[in-house]
């Protein structure tokens, strides 16, 4: 610091170092200062209008009453308003009628993807392709029928078919013979099919009965596909020996479609029925 200003007439602050190093009193440009004051004003106005300052337990709410959740709700309401027209129509129609209406079924297919993902995809796969132990919804083979009404009933009430375990009733070679006939696609060709009472549930021709949910044994699709190193013959034999949902047999296969009637609304079930129907296998 020098007592005497060695640079008279210059707009310096009077701070000097090393003879000639000094601090100049150059103000920021006017446009910058205007911008600065405007932004302060902006903050003041903003904090009056919108939630801004934290208080000990809460925060200032702002006179406009704006909230983020309110903004979100507004967006949701907008979507709901667009959907309302379709949703109202769906409420007054049966699943079959929805299916017949091209526009409405397209809407359902697109909008009920979320429902399918939330409720169905865990077992039946995101595209309805099924999974180990769970049937595919995309094919044309239905245990309980592929009509829109049957599908709706399946979702509403759930399904649980029962096949008795035959391991203790049949001799191993009998199981072998039956299984081979089934794998060949001609169950009725084995005399055992009639003798051992398979026809009671699977029908005379082995094509299954949808009222009982019994499998069609003549087609290319199996309810239980071989897992791991198993051959198809192995898995068919397993099913014959231990049955399905047989309470007296601990090794019995488990197969139950849960009931969605008490979890989902009627409209949601209608929509899901349409989606499942349109996956490819509806009949």
């Amino acid at each position, binding site marked *: 610091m020098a007592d005497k200003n060695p640079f008279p007439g210059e707009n310096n602050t009077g701070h000097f170092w090393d003879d000639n190093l000094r601090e100049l009193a150059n103000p920021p440009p006017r446009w910058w200062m205007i911008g600065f004051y405007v932004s302060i004003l902006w903050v003041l106005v903003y904090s009056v209008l919108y939630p801004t300052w934290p208080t000990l337990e809460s925060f200032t709410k702002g006179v406009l009453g704006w909230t983020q959740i309110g903004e979100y709700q507004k967006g949701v309401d907008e979507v709901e308003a667009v959907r309302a027209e379709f949703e109202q129509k769906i409420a007054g129609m049966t699943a079959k009628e929805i299916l017949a209406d091209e526009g409405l079924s397209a809407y359902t297919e697109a909008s009920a993807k979320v429902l399918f993902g939330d409720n169905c995809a865990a077992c039946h796969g995101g*595209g309805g392709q099924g999974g180990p132990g769970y049937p595919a919804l*995309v*094919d044309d*083979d239905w245990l309980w029928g592929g009509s829109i009404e049957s599908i709706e009933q399946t979702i509403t009430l759930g399904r649980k078919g029962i096949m008795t375990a035959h391991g203790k009733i049949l001799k191993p070679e009998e199981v072998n013979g039956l299984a081979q006939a089934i794998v060949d696609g001609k169950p009725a060709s084995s005399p055992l099919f009639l003798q051992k009472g398979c026809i009671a549930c699977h029908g005379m021709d082995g094509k299954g009965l949808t009222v009982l949910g019994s499998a069609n044994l003549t*087609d*290319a699709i199996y309810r239980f596909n071989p897992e791991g190193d198993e051959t198809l013959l192995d898995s068919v034999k397993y099913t014959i020996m231990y049955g399905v949902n047989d309470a007296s047999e601990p090794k019995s296969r488990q197969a139950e479609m849960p009931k969605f009637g008490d979890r989902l609304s009627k409209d949601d079930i209608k929509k899901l029925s349409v989606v499942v129907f349109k996956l*490819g296998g509806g009949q």
Partner: protein
Amino acid sequence: MSDNRQTKQDVAVDELYAEAAHWELNTGQETIHAKRISGKWRSYKWFSNAFWLLFFLGPLLRWGDRQAVLFDIPSRQFHILGITILPQDFWMLSLLLLFFAILLAVVTALVGRVWCGFFCFQTVWTDIYTWIEEKLEGSPPKRRKLEKAPLNFTKFRIKAVKHFLWLVIGFLTGMAFVSWFVDAYALWMGLFNFTLGSTAIITIGLFTAGTYGLAGFLREQTCFWLCPYARIQGVMVDNTTAVPTYDFYRGEPRGRVKKGQKEEDRKTGDCVDCNQCLAVCPTGVDIRHGQQEGCITCALCIDACDAVMVKLNRPTGLIRYESLDVLNAKESRPLLKRTRVWIYTFVLTLALAGIAYGLSTLDAIEIKVIHARQPLFVLQSDGSIQNKYTVKVLNKMTADMDVQLSVSGPQGVRMVGADEPVTSRHGKVTPRTLFVRVPREYVLEESRPIVFRAEGRDAQGQLFISERESVFFGPRR
């Protein structure tokens, strides 16, 4: 040469010197008030200015029941006379841009910044603005005087009328611009009914303000400091480019006309240092320093110089369109015999041919096929393999059309869900979900190509076909 004539010339030259006494290096501090001069290039300039009438009048033309040229962005349709272009055909736009990019390079390499000097909206609008200014305020010296004069009623009236007219032109420019994107007549109706949309209002406002500011105030400073285009074009100019050039061999040493001196006794060059070329220059540069970044090659200095040369009875063309190489006698081939001209022409023709090909082969219908991925394939109860596809039919015509879908591929292939034809809506994409089944014994590979085909007939019975290849998936063998 008679004495009488000499005197007459002297008087004329004195006037000229007086006119151009005011000149400073253009650094933007002072408004350039260029003298307006008539002549050959000035006439050309009016013609090239008139090109922009298309911009104003084009949207008013009709084609059938719609605007002849309309870039309908909300519905993604671009109507150009009888043709409707959808976003799918936008590759032609890249060819068009290529064409214009090359055209710019070609023209600039051959004859300099013709765009800047004759066609650029900045130049043209500034020209019109200054024309109005001259009509209201008078010649450049008068304008400078008025600028310095204190504000009184007369000055206020003149200025008010000028700014009003400028704003009207700016506003019309905005209206014309928006008219290319919405129906022009509806736009004007909306203006008078106060029912214009916010986008239209904002766009028109921006254009009004932009035109007013750029053509009224920034003017040549835009070309100097704002426009990247000017710089890009600047680097395309070389020694072989014909640009307005001062013939220094003929002109130097320049010297004022000495009164009473005989033409035979003259020791100076043809340039009489009258500074007329500076007085008329809209960007305020001195062409006698050679080609420079400020020169927009508007050729008005040629008109000015020629007028003086005629008055002095000297040959015209002291400033003329000429390349440095020709001036320095390094090049004598005429324009059309230069290799680069032919190469440029060839590339331009290619781009044009591409656009012509595109326009002549615009498909009326087009299909896209999307294979469902989850699952890739499904085993059906009869043992066949099923794949799911979504076929999207794009109809670019003006009427709906029934399109029959078919598929060809592996033996035994069968399509489910496409017995009914797809009613494809015009100007839209219509999707159809369908299934393709192939018997198990013919599914020999994990994936193989499959071809979808769409056929439709319009009201006149003309057949339209579109094909698209997709894949068919099966189990691993």
